[in-house]
């Protein structure tokens, strides 16, 4: 049977089992929207800005592991989506973005709402396609889903000219796909895995450093088993939180620029460091020169060969899918007669406890002003540590990472790589739609929330009852902190003057809100937000927090892991 390009597009999405498409209509995608109107296989969520469509698809993906889908029109629709695409790219999120394009004869003519979408997005997608021939439409969409979700995942964009959505062709959805130029490795090299296991068994001061790859590949179970089997301490990156339970005694929390003292010191002084689905980025190890000051052997497990030996040299590289490699390692360790040196391990863990006793996350608990850390501790307590927490970018993000102790993967959803302010609210929408019964909190700042505040309307339309935890300090807090530390307290443009009344704003969009000025009211407000009574209501909590609070510990730029500023 012959179908139009628009029908094919919609059929392909249904074939892929897509549940939600986040999008915004426009001229070039009208044919596709017309087909969406006629079908009931998936739901379309109308956002209020294309950036939010991509972030919502991203949040949906992070919370489920499935490929997120966004649909935007040509020109400004596509350019608005770029920040969202780049965000997903930096954090390796599987996603397919479908963009409309002007009709093929108009391409290159500076047509209305024309932009070179494939060109603009090329540096921030895993791959992209311009479909000029309707006969290639179905196979291209199949390829897009395949590429997005395999290997190191990432966003794939499919640009479809309007005339291609009108033309008709015989439709058949390919059952499988194979690309001669794309064959991601999954199984690690057996010899390298053996070497790695031997190195681990000989370690005196071992450290596991686990990143977002553990979350993306659903390897939390294997990671936890490996760490407990060996009795080795584990630190997680910002992207890896929840990959190993924060409540486990072997957890030393997050490492990096705002990581814990114990995590950073332990990584710095380890003799064998095993990096799992992590990439030694600048916010994690700081200056590589300083990282090299201490000698250690490094094992690096990653599905992306280009992540290995990019910033630091490693001794045992293992390219492969994390859960498969870890399963192999666990098997070998169990089969081995050797055990790690228990006396050395005990000394090492004692040393780590000594570092931990510095209590690097301490803050003033007797303050008359609301401390942001306190709000997050209470949020953890009241949600029983079981909420999905999205965040924006800045101080609140770091505090959420430090104080909400994640025991499960896919619960912590933030823009770690690109650092996109405006991510939290739309991402939370995707999370809540994926998990309608779950508690979803969006921890944000008054700077970030205003970058996609229009999505409060989307939340109303689609009954998305997320809880917005605004840590409002009337400053772009992280900018303010850097200005205080490194710019002689010259607070250039970091003060957020003339803020809206957020409670009234939430109410204007049809939601509920409360302003909290006093530490004594914090618990009550959170209880109210997560109460049965408010279960189906979006609640916007505007916490007026301490304006001068800083995120500690902190590794200043260009320094190493052992050079933290502590409270």
């Amino acid at each position: 049977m012959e179908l139009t390009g628009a029908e094919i597009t919609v059929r392909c999405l249904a074939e892929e089992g897509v549940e939600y498409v986040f999008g915004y209509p426009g001229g070039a995608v009208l044919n596709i929207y017309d087909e969406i109107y006629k079908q009931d296989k998936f739901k379309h969520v109308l956002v209020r800005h294309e950036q939010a469509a991509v972030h919502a698809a991203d949040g949906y993906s992070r919370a489920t592991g499935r490929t997120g889908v966004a649909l935007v029109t040509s020109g400004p629709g596509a350019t608005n989506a770029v920040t969202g695409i780049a965000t997903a790219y930096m954090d390796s999120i599987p996603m397919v973005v479908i963009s409309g394009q002007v009709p093929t004869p108009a391409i290159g003519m500076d047509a209305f709402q024309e932009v070179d979408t494939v060109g603009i997005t090329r540096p921030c997608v895993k791959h992209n396609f311009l479909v000029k021939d309707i006969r290639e439409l179905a196979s291209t969409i199949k390829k897009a889903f395949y590429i997005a979700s395999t290997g190191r995942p990432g966003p794939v964009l499919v640009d479809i000219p309007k005339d291609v959505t009108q033309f008709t062709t015989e439709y058949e959805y390919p059952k499988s796909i194979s690309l001669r130029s794309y064959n991601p490795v999954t199984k690690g090299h057996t010899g390298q895995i053996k070497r790695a296991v031997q190195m681990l068994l000989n370690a005196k001061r071992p450290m596991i450093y686990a990143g977002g790859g553990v979350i993306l590949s659903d390897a939390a179970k294997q990671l936890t088993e490996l760490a407990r089997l060996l009795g080795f301490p584990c630190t997680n990156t910002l992207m890896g939180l929840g990959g190993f339970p924060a409540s486990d005694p072997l957890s030393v929390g997050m490492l990096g620029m705002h990581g814990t003292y114990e995590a950073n010191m332990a990584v710095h002084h380890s003799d064998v460091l095993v990096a799992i689905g992590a990439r030694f980025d600048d916010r994690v190890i700081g200056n590589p020169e300083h990282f090299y000051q201490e000698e250690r052997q490094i094992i690096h497990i990653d599905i992306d060969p280009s992540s290995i030996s990019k910033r630091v040299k490693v001794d045992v590289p293992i390219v492969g899918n994390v859960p498969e490699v870890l399963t192999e390692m666990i098997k070998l360790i169990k089969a081995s007669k050797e055990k790690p040196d228990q006396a050395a391990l005990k000394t090492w863990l004692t040393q780590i406890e000594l570092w931990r006793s510095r209590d690097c996350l301490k803050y003033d608990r007797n303050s008359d002003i609301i401390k942001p850390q306190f709000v997050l501790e209470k949020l953890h307590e009241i949600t029983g540590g079981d909420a999905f927490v999205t965040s924006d970018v800045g101080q609140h993000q770091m505090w959420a990472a430090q104080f909400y102790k994640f025991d499960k993967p896919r619960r912590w959803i933030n823009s770690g790589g690109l650092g996109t302010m405006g991510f939290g609210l739309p991402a939370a929408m995707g999370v809540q739609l994926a998990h309608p019964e779950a508690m979803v909190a969006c921890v944000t700042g008054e700077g970030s929330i205003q970058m996609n505040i229009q999505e409060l309307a989307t939340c109303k339309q689609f009954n998305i009852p997320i809880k917005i935890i605004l840590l409002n300090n009337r400053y772009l807090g992280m900018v303010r902190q850097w200005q205080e530390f490194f710019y002689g307290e010259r607070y250039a443009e970091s003060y957020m003057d003339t803020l809206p009344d957020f409670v009234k704003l939430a109410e204007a969009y049809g939601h509920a809100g409360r302003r909290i000025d006093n530490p004594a009211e914090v618990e009550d407000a959170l209880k109210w937000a997560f109460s049965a009574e408010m279960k189906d209501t979006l609640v916007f909590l505007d916490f007026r927090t301490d304006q001068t609070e800083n995120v500690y510990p902190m590794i200043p730029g260009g320094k190493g892991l052992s050079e933290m500023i502590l409270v």
Partner: protein
Amino acid sequence: MRHIISLLMENEAGALSRVAGLFSARGYNIESLTVAPTEDETMSRMTIVTRGSDEVIEQITKQLNKLIDTVKVVDLSDGEHIERELMLVKVRAEGEWREEMKRMSDIFRGRIIDVTDKTYTIEMTGAGHKLDAFLEALDKSALLETVRTGASGIGRGERILKS
């Protein structure tokens, strides 16, 4: 160190810009880049001449491999290989230059492929340094125009780059 990297890519629109974009986005050097379809017209063969430390070259080959359209990458500098570049040079060919230019072209095994009263156009192939040497040897005031293709490379003997 100078490296000559060969790659086979799907002959898709945009493949060249993916490679060029990768080099500029990651700040890698690119001395020359040549590209054309192969005997299998679904594939293009590209030769890139670049410079960098061992670590940088390792990253370059990994990043090239990561491109979805890349079928195969090989650093020809890792083994025995041949490289050739084509150059067209237009020179003055009046008066005393006429004999001199013919002689120079012969010495460097060039071929004069276009002749006017005032100019010769010389075609020359060879490794890049030979072409450099020819330009070096010419009197600059006789040199009117040069155009070079950049290097193409191939492994020696049984060393074959195929999908």
